[in-house]
Structures are given as structure tokens and as C-alpha cells.
């Protein structure tokens, strides 16, 4: 950590690196800004997948069709079967009210569910481990002939694939941005070192050790990258924070923001940028100093 302990003398000895310094600051800032967005996208996609998982994967529906007089009996039977099935957390017959709600978009709110011979729906919530769908189907076929199990697999898979792709896009962007930042800081440091060949030769002439020279450059670029990334992160997080809250009805966007502890992830960006700059500049400085005879 000695890079951060200011060696005022060595800092004065290496001239202000002007445009390359500003370039580093700016590149680190812009990249951090973009990283915050990509991070938000990835996290949102991740949440999305979890949510769809929760809503669809962890729940299934049992549909019981039977003549009205048998419906109640079969429902009780089915509930008993479900309760004794390992992997099912709870099972609950939907009330007439709820069934009406589900049908409302199509048939209006006044559908006389009670008097209609429509099937009874049972909502099943699974445990973490899930249940054996094939086994359950066999048991139900034997005991509750009118029951059909829908485990939502048909809906879940494509949605999860889509969320996965969005998330992948986010992480790929982050990796790309990180690599770009490292490359840009390396090039900027190299440009600064090349522009200061004369300074280096003067310092060597009067007996300065290479470590002394290198440290001054490395410290500078590390601090710049850290500062730039901090500013960029702050602005990026601010922009995300100011985004209008996601409307929950939107259904498929949970909102691009960070949630809870997620807000701490961007805080990691500046130190990482600083470390990347430290490593990149250090390597560049050692290489250049070896090159200048």
C-alpha cells in the first residue's frame, strides 16, 4: 500500500503528465459509469430469473375436472395426496373469488363461477428440492382420476433462457469494459513514460534508482484511475438511482436499479480500477525502464 503514502518529493520530480493523466481519469470514469449500468443490468436479469423461478418453477397448478357433485370430494382427496408428497411445501384450493379473478380478463368480473361446471384449481408450492412430477402424476391418475398436473415447465424454460441471456450480456459487457480500461490505462501510462524519456534519463544520470522513478508514475496512475472510477461510479449509481421506479405490472423488468445489498457492489469498482491501474502501470513502467538503456 506504499503507493498511496504520498512521497511528495518523488511526485514533484516526475513532471505533471498532463493529457495522459486527464485521459486516465476520464477513461476510468467513463468505464466505471458504463460498468455500473452493465452491473445493474446483470443484477436485474439475475433477479428476474429468480423471480420467474419463484413464480413459476416453485409453483405448479393442479386442475381437477369432475361433475359438480364430486368436485369437492376429489379436491379434498387431491389435497391429501399432495400433502403426503415429499417436496411439496403446501397445496391450496383456489377460492371462487380467485378463480373469478383469473378469468376476469376474458369473461368479465361477473362470471358465476360457483354455478359453472368449471374445474377446481389447486396451487402447489414446492420446497427447494422440488417434487417428482412423474411420480405424482402416476399417483394422481390412480387416486384422483380428474386431476391434471401442470408444472409450468412449458412457460419457465424460455423465460429463464431469456433472463440468462440478458445476464450473460451484462457480464460480458463488464468483462469487456474491464479489459478495455486496463488496456487504455496501460497505453496511457506507456505514452506518459515515452513522453518522459528525457526526465528518466536525467533522473538516472543523477543516481535515482529505477524503483524511485517507477513508483512516481505508478502512484500517479493508480490514484488517477481510482479517482476517475470513483467519480464515474458515483455518477453512474446516481443515474441509476434517479431512474423512475420500475412498475411492477411491467412484469418482466424488475427495474434496472440496485436492490438492498446490491448497492454495495458498485463500491467495489474504484478499488478494482485502482488495482488494475496499479498492475498495468507497474508492468508498463518496468518494461519501459528496462527498455531505456
Amino acid at each position, binding site marked *: 500500500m506504499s503507493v498511496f503514502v504520498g512521497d511528495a*518529493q518523488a511526485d*514533484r520530480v516526475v513532471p505533471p503528465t498532463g493529457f495522459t493523466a486527464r485521459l486516465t481519469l476520464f477513461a476510468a470514469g467513463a468505464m466505471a459509469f458504463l460498468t455500473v449500468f452493465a452491473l445493474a443490468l446483470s443484477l436485474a436479469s439475475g433477479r428476474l430469473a429468480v423471480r420467474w423461478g419463484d413464480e413459476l418453477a416453485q409453483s405448479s397448478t393442479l386442475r381437477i375436472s369432475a361433475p359438480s357433485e364430486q368436485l369437492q370430494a376429489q379436491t379434498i382427496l387431491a389435497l391429501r395426496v399432495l400433502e403426503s408428497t415429499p417436496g411439496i411445501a403446501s397445496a391450496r384450493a383456489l377460492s371462487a373469488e380467485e378463480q373469478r379473478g383469473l378469468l376476469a380478463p376474458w369473461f368479465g368480473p361477473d362470471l358465476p363461477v360457483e354455478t359453472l361446471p368449471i374445474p377446481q384449481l389447486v396451487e402447489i408450492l414446492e420446497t427447494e428440492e422440488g417434487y417428482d412430477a412423474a411420480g405424482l402424476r402416476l399417483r394422481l391418475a390412480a387416486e384422483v382420476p380428474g386431476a391434471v398436473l401442470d408444472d409450468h415447465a412449458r412457460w419457465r424454460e424460455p423465460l429463464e433462457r431469456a433472463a440468462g441471456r440478458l445476464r450473460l450480456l451484462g457480464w460480458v459487457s463488464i468483462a469487456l469494459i474491464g479489459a478495455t480500461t486496463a488496456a487504455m490505462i496501460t497505453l496511457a501510462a506507456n505514452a506518459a513514460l515515452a513522453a518522459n524519456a528525457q526526465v528518466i534519463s*536525467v533522473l*538516472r*544520470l*543523477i*543516481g*535515482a534508482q529505477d524503483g524511485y522513478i517507477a513508483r512516481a508514475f505508478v502512484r500517479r496512475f493508480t490514484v488517477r484511475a481510482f479517482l476517475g472510477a470513483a467519480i464515474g461510479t458515483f455518477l453512474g449509481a446516481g443515474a441509476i438511482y434517479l431512474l423512475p421506479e420500475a412498475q411492477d405490472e411491467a412484469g418482466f423488468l424488475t427495474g434496472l436499479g440496485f436492490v438492498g445489498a446490491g448497492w454495495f457492489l458498485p463500491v467495489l469498482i474504484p478499488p478494482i480500477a485502482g488495482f488494475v491501474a496499479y498492475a498495468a502501470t507497474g508492468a508498463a513502467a518496468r518494461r519501459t525502464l528496462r527498455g531505456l538503456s
Partner: protein
Amino acid sequence: MIELDNIAYSYGGGELLSEISLKLAPGSFHFLTGPSGSGKTTFLKLCYGALVPTAGTVQLFGKDVRDMDRDDHAMARRRIGVVHQDCQFLDHLPLRENVSLPLTVSGRDSLEQNTNLKELLHWVGLGNRASALPPELSGGERQRAALARAVIMSPEVVLADEPTGNVDWEMSQRLLQLLVELNRMGKTIVIATHDMNLIRSAKNHVQTRVLRISNRKLQLAGADL
């Protein structure tokens, strides 16, 4: 302290210097002459380890330059004050800090040295330019500053490449005086110059040897002055 043993040097083409041996004894005072392009600067660079001879060995303070790593070189340069022919400075630092840079870099920046610095700047006629930046100095002023920087650590050896090329006669006498004084304190001095008048006037103050590079060899040229 600096020993050249039968060395040769070439920049890649033909040999520029060959069969040169020289022992710089502590307290000696040498002039180095020769036509432009004969290899005076090259010779001095060999003497402080900036170049490694293509044949033969150079020893700095008892160490073969071939065996020295970068830190060894840095340490050796703190004991050798060098005046380059094209005086290079850190253009962003005022003259004062440029001249005291060897102290800064070696961590010997003290108050005592500071009065030393003032005296020295005054002696080379730069007392009133101490806070100017190097690009704001005249050619002669830069040359004097370079000499001041080379001697500020009172190094054991001073290698000066044309230290009076751009200054008038009176000033060159002053600068010579400075080097003569250092020599009296036991320091070793080597001055590359093409100014025969300078050499002649030095002979009045101090015992010097005049070396001449001619035909790739180093010769004693005391007689022709």
C-alpha cells in the same frame, strides 16, 4: 576509482575507440581533447558506466560495470558528478530544485546543503536566476547550472563534457576555478574540451595531464601546448 583496462568501443559500425587503458587516480586532473566526433563524449560515457565497452573491462570503484545491476549503477552515479554536453534538466522544476536534485533523490536534502546551494549558485553567476525554469535560461546559464548540479554532492569524481562551450572567457575562468578548488579537496576531475586556452590557463593553477583521442587511441598530449 575508475579503471579502464585495454578497452574498445564501437556503436555498431567500425571501432571508434580501441586499446585504451587508463587509471584515474584520486585527486588527479585530466583534460580530454580531440577533434569533433573523435569520441570524447563516448569515452566519458564509458567512464561512468553509461556505455559498456565492447572489449576490455571498466571498473568503477572496484566493480566491473558488466557485473553491476541497475541499483549499483544508481549508487555509482551518486559518487560521480557528470556534466552532459547537452545539458538536460527537468523543465518543470525551478533551477534551484534542478541543481539540488541529486540531494533530493539520494535523500540528503538538508538545511546545511541549502546554504551550500546558495553559495554555489552565486559562484556560477546564477544567484538571481534560482527560481527560473530551465527553458527560461540562456545557453550559458544552462551550462553553468549543469556544472553546479554535477558538483553539489561533492562527488569523488567530476566528469565534465565541454562545460565552457557556451560561456565567455571570464565565466569559463570562474568555472575552472570551481573545479580546481574541488581538485584541491582531493576530487578527481576530467574535462573534455576543445578550448586550448582553457587548458593553458588551467596549467597555471594545477597540475594537469592532457589526454588526446586521435586515431581511436588515447595519447598524452602535454608536449604540444
